[in-house]
């Protein structure tokens, strides 16, 4: 059985990884759009992204689009792997319960 991943299981971080994992490999998402998708605040998203970046699960790129600063985030290969394993772990927990009555 796969193990629990405490870094990813936190609700906001799980939503972040779910969104990044839905993108094609190598694709990144803008900070503001990710914030809207995971339904959180700038500060909260920033702190959770820091935690995921420290774990090596996401890569954060800061650049300028014209004169406007833009932060783009993408899942790393190890982040995608960790997310898939954690989702498999969650499914195993449900499977152990057997079919719902």
């Amino acid at each position, binding site marked *: 059985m796969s193990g*629990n991943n*405490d870094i990813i*299981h936190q*609700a906001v971080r*799980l*939503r972040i990884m*779910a*969104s990044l*994992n*839905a*993108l*094609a490999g*190598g*694709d*990144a*998402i*803008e900070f503001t*759009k990710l914030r809207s*998708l*995971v339904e959180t605040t700038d500060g909260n998203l920033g702190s959770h992204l820091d935690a995921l970046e420290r774990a090596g699960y996401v890569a954060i790129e800061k650049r300028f689009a014209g004169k406007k600063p833009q932060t783009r985030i993408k899942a790393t290969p190890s982040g995608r792997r960790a997310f898939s394993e954690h*989702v498999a*772990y*969650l*499914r195993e*927990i*449900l499977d*152990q*319960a057997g079919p719902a009555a």
Partner: protein
Amino acid sequence: MAIDQESAASSLSDVERVQKRTLELVRYSYASRYQLVWGVLVALGYIAQYLRPESGISIWAAVIFAGIVGGAVFRIGRSRIRGQPADYRWVWGQVAVVAFGLLWTGVFTDATPRQLSALWPSFFMFWMVIFGIFFGRFYVILGLVVSVLTAIVYLWSGDLFLPCMAVIVGGGLIASGLYLRRIGLGSR
């Protein structure tokens, strides 16, 4: 920390919801490019038909050909960037829809140019609504709005029918394409 079944179910539901919404926005971004291309082509087609009604068939053949070829080129380019084999199903889908429409509007029935000019966008918008039921409410709204406006100008716009259609169908596709580009998730 152990995770109970209720928490696991709730987390998986969260994952599914966020991924579904993310993919919806990715699709919006891709669709925006097609809509902008088709919007410009269709607007030009209606204006050209208004100015040269006798060349209607040639004008629309050129518009449809340019739209399908443009879409195919875009998909091939995107596949190359991603290093994936090109997927031609979307192109064949468009060819099938056009062939079906041509058969029933050009061969089996005897519709007037005005009727055809209203029928075609309504036909595409009908499929847009069906598509939207599965992939995003935006398409449902776009399909219904354009269809209703098409019916209105068909009945009441008189000689300005074709310019009105250029604004409604072409303008509608361009405006919605720009909107989708703003809300969608661009790649790389």
